[in-house]
């Protein structure tokens, strides 16, 4: 019994730990991307054909890629687009999720059922396939169109949580009161519903940012995302097919390490938020 209790306390104790390392590293990366203009030693889009595929050395800290661009500059510059896509996609998906979830939660049983079935149908197709599909429809892609197609394929899980939270509080007196005084849908959503479920979807929102950044990288790498001229962490690696055969490891590994570090930090922060929210209820 003693052992049981002490380990339980351990978990609770651990969940209170704020992930300082992750926050610091993420802050450094974000600041570096914002102030990329100051850090960059070279113009990231300039193709220096005299110095293609150079391994890391003093004047090119991370080497150059197969088009002769400086990787160190490209990482900070490209990070802007990657982070921008991550955040914009998350804003889109969260907005859709909240509106959809609230409507579903407030409606009668049949509409609610139908709406939830619809989310299940959408969930049943691998999201990468839907993203491919939408990309094919949009055609020429830029940062906004990618964020859009990632955003409208990743709202389902959040909207399910929103819906079940809304269903629990929809019959409370304060919502009835607000309604009978003529409060509109968006007023009730903003003033009464949102504050109640924001904490339970927060961790999913944070993990969605990571998911969006990873998906953008995958898409650009596979050639249906951003074109090579628009620099992001994904399109940076799109050239690595060529680099692979010549064994230019730095073109592949260095952008990848930046991408993974960012994703790990985001995941850690997301996990911290999740544990903080439901530490009384379960050990998940």
């Amino acid at each position, binding site marked *: *019994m003693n052992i*049981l209790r002490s*380990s*339980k306390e*351990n*978990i609770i104790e651990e969940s209170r730990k704020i992930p300082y390392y992750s926050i610091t590293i993420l802050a450094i990366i974000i600041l570096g991307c914002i102030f990329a203009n100051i850090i960059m030693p070279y113009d990231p889009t300039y193709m220096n054909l005299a110095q293609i595929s150079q391994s890391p050395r003093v004047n090119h800290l991370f080497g150059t890629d197969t088009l002769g661009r400086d990787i160190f500059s490209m990482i900070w510059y490209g990070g802007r687009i990657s982070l921008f896509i991550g955040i914009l996609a998350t804003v889109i998906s969260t907005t859709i999720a909240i509106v959809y979830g609230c409507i579903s939660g407030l409606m009668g049983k049949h509409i609610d059922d139908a709406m939830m*079935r*619809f989310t299940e*149908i959408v*969930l*049943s*197709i*691998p*999201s*990468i*396939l839907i993203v*491919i*599909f939408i*990309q*094919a*429809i949009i*055609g020429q892609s830029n940062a906004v169109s990618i964020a859009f197609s990632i955003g409208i394929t990743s709202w389902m899980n959040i909207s399910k949580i929103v819906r079940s939270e809304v269903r629990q509080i929809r019959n409370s007196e304060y919502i009835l009161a607000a309604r009978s005084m003529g409060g509109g849908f968006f007023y009730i959503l903003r003033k009464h519903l949102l504050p109640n479920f924001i904490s339970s979807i927060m961790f999913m929102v944070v993990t969605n940012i*990571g998911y969006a950044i*990873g998906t953008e*990288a*995958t898409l650009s*790498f*596979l*050639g*249906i995302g951003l074109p090579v001229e628009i620099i992001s962490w994904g399109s940076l*690696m799109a050239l*690595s097919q060529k680099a*692979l*055969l010549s*064994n230019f*490891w730095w073109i*592949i*590994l260095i952008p*990848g390490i930046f*991408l*993974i570090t960012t*994703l*790990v930090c985001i*995941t*850690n922060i997301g*996990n911290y938020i999740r544990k903080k929210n439901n530490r009384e209820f*379960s*050990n*998940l």
Partner: protein
Amino acid sequence: MRKRIIKLVLNKIFQFLLVMFLLSLIVFYMARLSPGDPLKSYYGESVERMSIAQQEAAMERLGLDEPIYLQYTKWIENAAAGDFGISFKYKQDVMKVIGDVYENTLILGGLAYILNFGLALLLGVFCALHEEEWIDRIICKIGVVTNCIPAFFISLVFILIFGVNLAILPTSGAYSIGQSQNIMDRLVHLILPLAVLVLGHLWYYTYMVRNKLLEETRQDYVLLCKVKGLSKRQIMWKHCLKNIMPSFISIMAISIPHILGGTYVVEKVFSYPGLGTLSFESAQFHDYNMLLVLCLITGAVVVTANITAQIINEIIDPRMKYERGDLQ
């Protein structure tokens, strides 16, 4: 009793058909309303040399000039007879193109699925038995990191290490030229894609198993078992594991789209001929007939899996029936 089973089965079949119908409707409309020009993917560059009358004739021949709902009813009629149209890119029956490669995806995805869940169960139990010890902490830390790495990046690193530098494993295709019947050769080609799929997904499921088990070990019946004198391992394997099985099976069903999606990406990176490579190609060439069928196949697999999981869960955990009020 028998009536109830028939009713249940009919109900599930109805559910399945409804979902497939809606899915095809949505995908069909999206595909036809999109700006990409299917004529171009069928005739290639020669479209630009055609006169307008020729283009219209071609549109009519391919059935692209009618209103969408008519196209859709026609498509459904043909589909019911087993004719899903021709692939604009391959100029062949869609089913024929898919029939040539679907086995590859089935093998890769199926093996990845079995390995993932087998290993997730073992590793999850191991972690739960050693909760909060150093080994568990290390596995957790490594797991979080591997879970964050995008599949294409692991693939790249593996190709770099095993394909380029060590040159011991093949990095593309499903078999070497002329070796399509050689099972050993096929297995060697499967190693890297499989390793990527397992590494990329394993931790997610292990973590779920571990947490479910940790919740379970805090229940009162575990104390009773302990008092009875059962060892830790016995309690874990015989009692806790049985109790988490329903949620494990649900997770297995929900995870199919994830693993399938992962398979698609990995196939593309390793240029492994399969449904994934096909779907990327058909997206790039606006080959909507193909993409439509691929979406439907994927959807059918996933919906079937979900329904199967529900049925299995009802068999192993009768409480679920009572909750739904079926057994009265």
